[in-house]
Structure formats: C-alpha cells, structure tokens
C-alpha cells in the first residue's frame, strides 16, 4: 500500500484504503480495481490523494489518530448541529460534547501519535469533514501544549464550529458569476467570522470562548488579519490554535483553487509564517504532530535505493522508519528489509517519488 496523487493513478490499480462517502458509507472498498471512470469521479469529488494497493510494497499499517467510528460520528453530529443552530439557539449540544469528548479521550490514549493519514475527508462533505479535521489537529496540538481537559473541550467545540458563520453566507454566491465585485465577495466572506460569533454567543450551553474562536480564527498574529486586526496575545488562545489547524487542512486538501501541498510543503509554509500569521508557540507544537513523510510515501534515498515510509516518529521528523524495495541498480529487493533512518544517519531521504510505477 502506498500514497499516490490521483493525477498519477492509472486504471487497473487497486484501492489500498477505503474511500468514504458522506455518513461514513464506503464508496470504494479495499482491493477494488480502479477504472478510468472511477478515477475521473474521484477527481470530481475533490479527493487529491489516494492509497493504492501495491504488491511490491507489501502491507503497511496506517492508523488514523482517532478511530473511523469517532470521526464519522463527529462529522454527523457537527452537520446536524450546524444545520439547526441558527434556528434553534436552545439547541441541545449533548451529542456535540460527547463527540468532542470521544476525540479527546482517543487522542489522550495514544499521545505519541502523529497525523499520518492524508486526505481523510469524506467526499460530499467538505465543510463538516474539514471542521472535524480542524478539531482533531487543534486538539492534538493543544495536548502537546499541555492543555487540561476543560480547556480541550472548549477548544474542540470552537474548532468544530469555527466556520458556522459560513452557513449564513451561501458558498455558491461566492463562486457564482454575480454582479458582486471581488471586494464585495471578500467582504461577504469576511463577515462569516462576525456572523458565526453572533450565532454562537446566543447559545447558552456554550462557553463564550467558543464564539470567540469563530470570531477570531482569521486574525493574524502580526495584526494583519480580520475582522478586528488584533494581534499577538490579544487573540484568543483557542483561536490562535484553530487558525493554524484551519490553514494546514486547507493547504493539504487543495481547496480554494490552490494546488494541494504535501504535508512537508504545508509544514514549511506554516513555519515560514510563524510570527506573521501564526502564533510561534502554537506552530512550535503543531509541527511535531504532523508526519512530514506520511506512512505510505515512496522516497528515494541518497544511496539511490527506493523505499516506502512505514513508521514515523515525533522526535525525528525527517527520519522515519523505511522499508527498502528497490536497490541502486533498479532491482527489486526481495524480501524487503526495514531500516530506522534515525539510527542510520548515513542514509537519508533525497526526494519523494511521485511516479506511478516503482
């Protein structure tokens, strides 16, 4: 099993990890042979990266930081809550709290875990899948920062609802050809922060801090964000975390007309903007939760050997455990053997291999 950009996938290749639709239903199961129609459809659905079964790579265990069950439950309850929240300020948030609790508990149970899965969102569900991704990324970062459980709960809810204001700004208006100028569109888009704030602050069972996450998640550390252009410690501490998680997920999903960045590229971009858009203290912790070379990535070593990443470690971001597949002469290494790059410093990654064939 290995990671492949959908652009490089060819008909006949097999699915190495299920592709899910809305509500957690399996669209394409493990082992399904991809046809050109399937591939086109996957592209249309906005999935940029897939796991492909590859016999020469062998079995690799790739674990999500939370279980699939918890993730899809969270997506489901977030969707329901967001759809009802405007009409019903007395909304019962018990299920949301439960979903946040489940995520927190699972993350706390495997605290050395790293974000390895790429493009886990379920199709047709961008907004809610994105909300849950942002919540998971925010929480895992806050756990490494030493937040206590009460604070984690506020952060989790804030992250899930950070874009609630967008439900009031119909996205298709922004995408459609309308008489609106770009400035108008931008202004409308920027309003989702204040709209979100007003929706959330009216809900009694929610901490006011949750509303502030929605209001402030586009503020920049250097004061160049919106809506209030506040800076540094003036920005709510939960919002400072959600900002980083939000941008990371957008960058790696290839939304908003950008081409998709790999985790390595996205992390570099986030570090480059630390102290500008992002709070340095948050970035410092965030970057250690992301696998720069996610499990399943094919890499070229300095020895001209090709290998696949099989395990990642927080302490050694650029030095995962790899399985060697092809030697420097281009011959298959059979059976493959594995190596810790962290304890064999003479071996190092020189590039990520994106080609379709080994």
């Amino acid at each position: 099993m290995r990671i492949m950009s959908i652009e490089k996938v060819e008909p006949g290749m097999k699915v190495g990890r299920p592709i899910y639709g809305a509500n957690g239903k399996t669209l394409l199961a493990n082992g399904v042979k991809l046809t050109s129609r399937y591939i086109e459809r996957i592209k249309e659905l906005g999935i940029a990266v897939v796991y492909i079964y590859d016999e020469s790579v062998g079995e690799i265990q790739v674990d999500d930081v939370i279980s699939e069950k918890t993730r899809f439950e969270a997506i489901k309850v977030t969707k329901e809550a967001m759809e009802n929240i405007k009409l019903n300020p007395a909304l019962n948030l018990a299920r949301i709290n439960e979903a946040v609790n489940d995520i927190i508990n699972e993350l706390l149970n495997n605290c050395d875990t790293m974000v390895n899965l790429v493009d886990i969102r379920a199709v047709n569900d961008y907004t809610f899948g994105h909300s849950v991704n942002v919540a998971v990324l925010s929480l895992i970062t806050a756990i490494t920062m030493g937040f206590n459980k009460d604070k984690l709960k506020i952060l989790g809810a804030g992250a899930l609802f950070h874009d609630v204001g967008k439900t009031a700004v119909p996205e298709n208006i922004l995408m459609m050809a309308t008489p609106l100028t770009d400035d108008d569109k931008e202004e409308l888009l920027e309003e989702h922060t204040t709209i979100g704030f007003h929706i959330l602050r009216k809900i009694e069972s929610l901490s006011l801090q949750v509303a502030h996450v929605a209001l402030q998640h586009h503020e920049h550390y250097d004061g160049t964000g919106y809506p209030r252009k506040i800076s540094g410690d003036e920005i709510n501490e939960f919002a400072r975390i959600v900002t980083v998680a939000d941008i990371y997920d957008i960058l790696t999903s290839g939304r908003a007309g950008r081409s998709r960045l790999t985790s390595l590229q996205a992390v570099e971009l986030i570090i480059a903007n630390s102290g500008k858009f992002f709070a340095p203290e948050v970035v410092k912790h965030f970057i250690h939760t992301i696998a720069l070379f996610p499990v399943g990535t094919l890499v070229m070593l300095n020895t001209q050997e090709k290998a696949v990443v099989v395990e990642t470690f927080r302490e050694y971001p650029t030095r995962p455990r790899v399985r060697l597949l092809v030697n420097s002469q281009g011959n298959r290494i059979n059976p493959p053997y594995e190596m810790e790059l962290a304890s064999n410093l003479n071996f190092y990654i020189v590039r990520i291999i994106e080609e379709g064939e080994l």
Partner: protein
Amino acid sequence: MSEVKEGKLLHQVCSLLLKAHEEPEVFEQIAEQLRRNLQVSCCSIWLASPNGGVGQQRLAFSIVEDNLPADLPTLDFKEAFQAMGREGALNWQESQVKVEKQRLLSLTKPLSSHGHLDGAICFWFVDGAIRQHIVSLITSLAADLAQGLDNYRNFSDSSHRRLNKELAIAKQIQASFLPKKTPQLAGISIAFQSMTAHEMGGDYLDIFQTQNKLVGIALGDVMGKGIPAALWMAMTKVTLSTIAKSGVQPHVVLEEVNKALYQDLVERDTFVTLLYALYEPVKKVLLLANAGHLPPLVFHGTTGQYELLKVKGTYIGGIKNRKYKLIGVQLMAGDVVLFYSDGVTEATNSSGEQFELNNIVDVVSKNSLFGAQQIVDSLTIHVSQYIGNRQQADDITFACLKVG
C-alpha cells in the same frame, strides 16, 4: 560436513565467484548453495558502500521456506550493518534473537580485501552445533568472497568505472575525514551533510569539542580535485585540529594554519579557503575568522531576519604570515547558523540556474523551528530536488548549528 563435501562446496563457490564481475546473480547462487550445504535457515551477502561506509546494499538473500520471523530481513540488515561498522576490530559477530518461542542464532563476518571493507556475509540458524561448520568453511572462503565483492563493485558501479582505483581510495579517505559524530551539548543541536560529487572535490568539514568545552567548526575547500585535493584536505585537517584542540581563538588558528601550510601550498601553486568558528555554549557567542570561504548564514528565529557573517581574509597559502580578523556574534535561542560550501550555492537545475543564497535562506526559514538534523535533512532534500536527475557537479557540504 565431510572434508570431501566441504572441498566440493569450496570449489563450487570459488568457480561461481570468478564470474561475479559479469553476472551479479552468482551471489544469489552462492548464498543458496551455502544455505543448503551448511543446513542453515538463512544466508545473506552484503556489499559495503564504496564511499567509505556510507550506505550498504544486499546482494543476496536465501531463506528456507519455514516459519521464520517475518522481520528476519530487517534483523539481518541490522546484523550486517553492525558487523561492517566494527570492521577491523571484528572477526566474527554472534548474536541471538528470540522470536515467537524460537531461538535463532546469527553469525556474521565482515569481508575485507586490500585493507578495505568489501562487505559481509550473515548466517541464521537454529542449532548451535552448525556454528563450527560455518566458521571453518567461511574462514577458508573469506578472502575469495571479499575479492569477488571487490570485482563486482569495480565493475558494477558506473561511477567507479570512470574513476580509477586510486581515486576511489582517495574518495574513501575523504569520506573517512568527516566527523564521526557531532558533539552532544545541552542547549544546541549540531548536524552536517556531505554529498560528494562523482568527480571528487576538495571540501573539508570538521566539528569537534575543544579541551575547554567549546565547539569548533571548520569548513574549507581545496582548490582542485582528485588525489592532490584529498591530500591537501588531509593536511589541512590535521594541522587545524592540532592547533585548535586547546581552544585557541579562530583568527590565531587560521594564522597558524597559514604559517604551517603556506610554503608547501605556494610551491604546489594551490590554495585552501578555510573558515573556522568557535561556539561558546554558555554565553551563546560564536567567534569566527575566515580565510576566503563563503560567509556563514545566521537566521534569527525570533525576528525572521538573517545576516551573513562577513569578514575579509586571504585564503590559506595566499600571503606569508597573514593576520586574520576575529568577529563575534551573540546568538539567542531559536537562532540557526549555517555553514556551507560553494557546492550548495552553485548547485544547478535543469535550466542552468544556481541554487544561490536566497534558496538557502528560504529553506532555513521554513524549517527554523526544527532541530539542526531536520534543517540539514530538509536542505538536502531541497538541493537534491533542485538538481534533479542531473549529475552533481561539485561536493555539497554544509553544517548547521541551532540554538535552543
């Protein structure tokens, strides 16, 4: 095993080895023969890297179809790696692993010829009694196996087909000069990278701790390539480390190195660019003197600003009894210092453009929150991707010091 049988096996293996340079599959056949005749579970043959221990490659792996542990290939790699790492000090290496109630013994022998390491052969078996068969047979075979690996390597490695044997040895010498490990000190991390070009260059890097617990970093480049450059590099290294060990100030070190080498360099019409920096970890001060080498880059983590530590100085072998200037910089937690050779800035992409300083600054800033090793690894990846499939023209060497 009877003597007749042993003799027959020796004969078979040796006649296979004669073809090793043209048919690399013979190693697979040899491993298979040895495994069957010695009745072991697994036999593997490893080729040491030509670059003085950097990298290794498995040539053969033969295993019985049995319930052996799935990670045996990985354990086998570790055994071979260790055995080759301790070459010289080691004749046989023995170990045992317990996997799924099974006890497996391993026996590994590094193989050397003409005074340098060629590879290793590993055996895995269940019964301890087989041990003496293996030892006796492989002892008679070791020299031939090593020669076979040597022949194979000289033939198969295209870069070595072009280089003659002496150059290959010079390249090994050069690689052996690199720091074995970097000093481990609280409050800083240090890492380095050295990617040698096919045509050997003359980059020189040394990182060490002085007697008064300061960190010395020396980076130099000898004019010219090949064996003469490697020899000058060796002389520079020995001279500098002898002078610098006691913790002498950098400008004095360069003055002394110039005094010691000046006459010889002038006579041979060559020169060395050399930079020497001394880091004081308690006060976080970096002192530096430079004899014509590229200025190090300092990236300030807290402000995102960078500066080049420029100080003028004539190269070693330029002016007799030359004095050098000393400069210093106060570093803070989060600062990154990068020392680099012109192989980095002059790395060329397919359009003929050079990597240049702005790309280095960009990569450093994008990785500045990581430790030195990660910064070095990321720069390696960016430079390698920049070069792409083109052949690397010059040695690429850099060292990184990250505070905090």
